């Protein structure tokens, strides 16, 4: 345990890095993902096509490759992006596809009668989506969205493999320095991740129960 407590400041550095990646990456992913989800339900076929193409491409590409492209390949082409900004972009792009899917599944989860009722009293597409569908869908989207954020928390560790200072990168460094206390060091890092993910999971479960009761 001594190895953990003597390195608390390093831990804090890594923890801060992870939180920063989570916050900026999550915000970017939410904005981009909502936009993609709106394209996905739009009446215009070509916009739907663009959204489907983007989602499928991102969902089937490993995150490591997205990072690899931005941090390794682009500099080889003389396009330089600061590593940290690159990590934000990679995480946002990758996660936005999952955000879009979560929102779309929430929209699909609204009973079809709601949309039919709205349409039959004469609301148009924009009104139906804004007033009837989205308010119900977004409530149902919260738990899967939190799960996406939990996945994002874990995915931030990939950035550590590409020279961004965060928990995983810190753990690699510390484990190399303290060869005799590797287990304690790594368990400490694990605890840091759990501090983020477990409360998020609890919140998701609670909201899920609440929403389930109302329906």
């Amino acid at each position, binding site marked *: 345990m001594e190895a953990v407590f003597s390195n608390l400041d390093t831990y804090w550095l890594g923890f801060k890095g992870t939180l920063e990646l989570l916050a900026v990456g999550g915000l970017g992913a939410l904005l981009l993902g909502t936009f993609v989800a709106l394209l996905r339900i739009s009446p215009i*076929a070509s916009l739907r096509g663009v959204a489907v193409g983007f989602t*499928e491409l991102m969902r089937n*590409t490993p995150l490591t490759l997205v990072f690899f492209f931005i941090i390794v390949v682009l500099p080889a082409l003389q396009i330089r992006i600061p590593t940290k900004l690159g990590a934000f972009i990679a995480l946002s792009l990758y996660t936005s596809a999952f955000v879009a899917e979560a929102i779309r599944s929430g929209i699909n989860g609204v009973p079809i009668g709601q949309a*039919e009722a709205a349409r039959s009293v004469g609301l148009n597409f924009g009104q139906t989506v804004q007033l009837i569908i989205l308010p119900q869908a977004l409530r149902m989207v919260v738990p899967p969205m939190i799960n996406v954020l939990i996945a994002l928390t*874990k995915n931030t560790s990939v950035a550590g*493999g590409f020279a961004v200072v965060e928990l*995983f990168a810190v753990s690699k460094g510390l484990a190399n320095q303290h060869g005799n206390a590797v287990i304690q060091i790594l368990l400490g890092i694990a605890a840091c991740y759990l501090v983020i993910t477990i409360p998020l*999971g609890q919140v998701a479960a609670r909201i899920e129960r609440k929403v389930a009761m109302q329906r």
Partner: protein
Amino acid sequence: MSTSSVLYDAPGPKARRLSRVVSVLAAAVVGGAAVWLLWALGQPRVTVNGAVLTGLWSPERWDIFGDPRVWRRLMFDGLLMGTLRAAGLAAVLSLILGVVLCFARTAPRRWISVPAAIVLEFFRGMPVLLMMLFILLALGTGGYTAVVLALTVYNGAIIGEALRAGLLALPRGQREAGLSVGLTSLQTRLAVEFPQAFRQMLPIIVAQLVVLLKDTSLAYVVSYPEILRVSGYLKDYYGSTRYSFSIFAVVLLTYLAVNFTLSAIARWLARRSGPQAGAITPKEQP
């Protein structure tokens, strides 16, 4: 598009015209961006120290792919013996672990279910990368074992949770019916509930296997020679500046091909056996 959405009417002449205009605009923007990107990538570049690099589509950047040894290295050593070997074993093991964890988690005895719940929570909240590093360093195993074990534990936990959700979502009558014809609690679970839950959750499980396959690329970070790592070796061997992009493009296309195949299977399964979702937006899949 076969089924139309309830969100809007069948388009009339005006809406069709608008839709056409927007479609052309969108196609122009996306197509233009793609063409520009391809063009920009094909342009020669001048580096900081004055050397001129040829465009990315010039044949000399792609000539190594005429060599069967490169393909053998990438596809056989990298994809088959690296990525797919690890993913295949991890997929089988994580399915088994998922089933076991699901049963343990839903067991009526608390001394089984509570530890199972803790184990599930712990492994679900842990980055796969950290688990790989932990197994590699703390247990002192080789790269292959570390990768397979980490992927197994992580995806096993997720599959276990999915199966449990499937069990919980079953109508209660199923269990009651099983009990009332004289099956024991365990028999009901095995013979009545679990088969239904498994079928219901099959699309989610296959989707998770796609995630597993994608996650093998993380092994790059712990130096296990899967396709991304092998492509790195190739790059070092043939020259990074010259082949960086072409090798990356081939690896990306390989991943996409394999993953799209798996995703297509998942969608096909979802159509066959999954819940009938997609009420409001039209069901259209590429």
